[in-house]
């Protein structure tokens, strides 16, 4: 079983979202809790940063997310807003929880995708929304004009409509919706810094759980699943199946205009670049491939043991926000041992997978100990730089 999270400086037992809500309470019944929450926020810089990143508007709160509320967890609280082609958030709310489908397909795709994402986290990991405290799931569609992107702004998901030439609307892909919400999950757990290797891990976790949302919704096991991120996003004019392939990094597209999918699936292809916050969407191919290899070795549903090991790694505490690939690999190995035991097929599969992508898991580290050092480079291959990536086109 996963140990309770423990870390000397980050409080991961009480989710940051709940801490913030508690800290802002002005109710004598909760004075002690409120003081404690404020104290935690003051000494916890990652969470303070998170608080600063949250837009000034007060976030919605589902009934039941605070002590004394009575609503039961286990069902999402969704709202979808329409930005009407502007870049102002949140936009006009057009569908809320329980309302019938709208006439706008993007609204319904976002609503259903949020629901499927909630369902995976709740039914497989017992997690009540991204913060594990019933955080409402809010999204905005029709953001900007010809906007080729979707993102998580720290509080809500935002989808562009695409340009219609290269990209379709971004709600079309369930794995993209799962990807974005998983940035919320990461933010509320390990809070991995979005730069360099920890940023690539942040991206990889979003790809992996985004794909798991899609696999779970379709009832697909590892052998049947596409393992693609963003299938359906490209228009018919593009030679490509999707943005990325977790199974085979570097094979998702090969197009005259867009070029070839640049993702490596091994440390020998690690890309050093200043673009994209240090190539976070490129180098994520390496940990993506490692996860696939674990799933392939174990067979069955990837949201089972493989997903559980990665979930435990994010939630058990002790992971540095700036962890590198080698440190994360150690942490997954420790999580596998902790849940499935030394010498288990799961623990062996994790070690073999990281080794296969060129990230060695060192021997002698106290596996199973959440306080074991992470962030070391022990056992990792030396990244090979690709300076050409930094040249202007």
């Amino acid at each position, binding site marked *: 079983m996963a140990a309770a999270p423990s870390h000397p400086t980050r409080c991961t037992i009480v989710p940051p979202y709940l801490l913030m809500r508690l800290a802002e309470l002005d109710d004598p019944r909760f004075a002690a809790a409120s003081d404690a929450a404020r104290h935690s926020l003051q000494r916890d810089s990652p969470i303070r940063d998170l608080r600063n990143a949250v837009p000034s508007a007060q976030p919605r709160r589902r009934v039941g997310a605070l002590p004394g509320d009575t609503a039961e967890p286990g069902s999402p609280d969704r709202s979808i807003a329409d930005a009407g082609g502007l870049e102002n958030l949140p936009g006009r709310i057009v569908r809320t929880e329980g309302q019938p489908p709208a006439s706008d397909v993007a609204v319904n795709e976002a609503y259903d995708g949020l629901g499927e994402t909630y369902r995976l986290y709740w039914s497989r990991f017992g997690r009540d929304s991204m913060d594990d405290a019933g955080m409402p799931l809010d999204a905005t569609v029709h953001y900007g004009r010809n906007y080729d992107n979707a993102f998580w702004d720290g509080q809500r998901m935002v989808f562009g409509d695409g340009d219609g030439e290269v990209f379709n609307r971004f709600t079309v892909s369930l794995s993209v919706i799962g990807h974005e919400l998983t940035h919320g999950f990461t933010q509320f757990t390990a809070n991995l810094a979005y730069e360099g290797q920890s940023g690539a891990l942040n991206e990889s976790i979003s790809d992996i759980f985004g794909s798991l949302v899609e696999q779970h919704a379709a009832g697909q096991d590892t052998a049947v699943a596409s393992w693609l991120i963003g299938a359906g996003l490209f228009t018919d004019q593009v030679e490509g199946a999707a943005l990325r392939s977790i199974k085979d990094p570097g094979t998702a597209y090969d197009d005259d205009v867009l070029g070839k999918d640049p993702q490596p699936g091994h440390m020998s292809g690690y890309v050093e670049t200043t*673009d994209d916050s240090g190539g976070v969407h490129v180098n994520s191919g390496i940990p993506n491939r490692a996860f696939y290899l674990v799933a392939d070795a174990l067979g069955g549903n990837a949201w089972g043991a493989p997903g559980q090991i990665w979930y435990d790694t994010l939630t058990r505490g002790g992971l540095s926000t700036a962890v590198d690939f080698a440190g994360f690999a150690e942490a997954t190995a420790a999580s596998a041992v902790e849940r499935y035991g030394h010498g288990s097929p799961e623990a062996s599969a994790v070690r073999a997978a990281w080794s296969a992508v060129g990230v060695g898991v060192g021997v002698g580290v106290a596996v199973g100990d959440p306080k074991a050092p992470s962030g070391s480079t022990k056992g990792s291959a030396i990244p090979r730089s690709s300076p050409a990536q930094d040249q202007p086109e």
Partner: protein
Amino acid sequence: MKVVVSRSGGITGMRTTWEVQVDDQPDAPRWAELLKELPWDQVEHRAPQPDRYVYRIRCELHDVILGEPELKGMWRELVDRVRAVNERH
């Protein structure tokens, strides 16, 4: 004088680059004024946010990186101008 705007990041992780020869533009004085007024030396590094675009803007000796949330005011005007010139061609 050339301005180069390179946009990377976003969930797609793809890079797009646009450039403009300022002296060839019909409103070259306005370009020059804008480029002179921009606070090139006051750009601070902010922690990147998931799947937001990252803009790298270069002009002569200037070379700055701005996250999408920081692309406001004159920076936004510059990037919109550069893109507009490229889309006309």
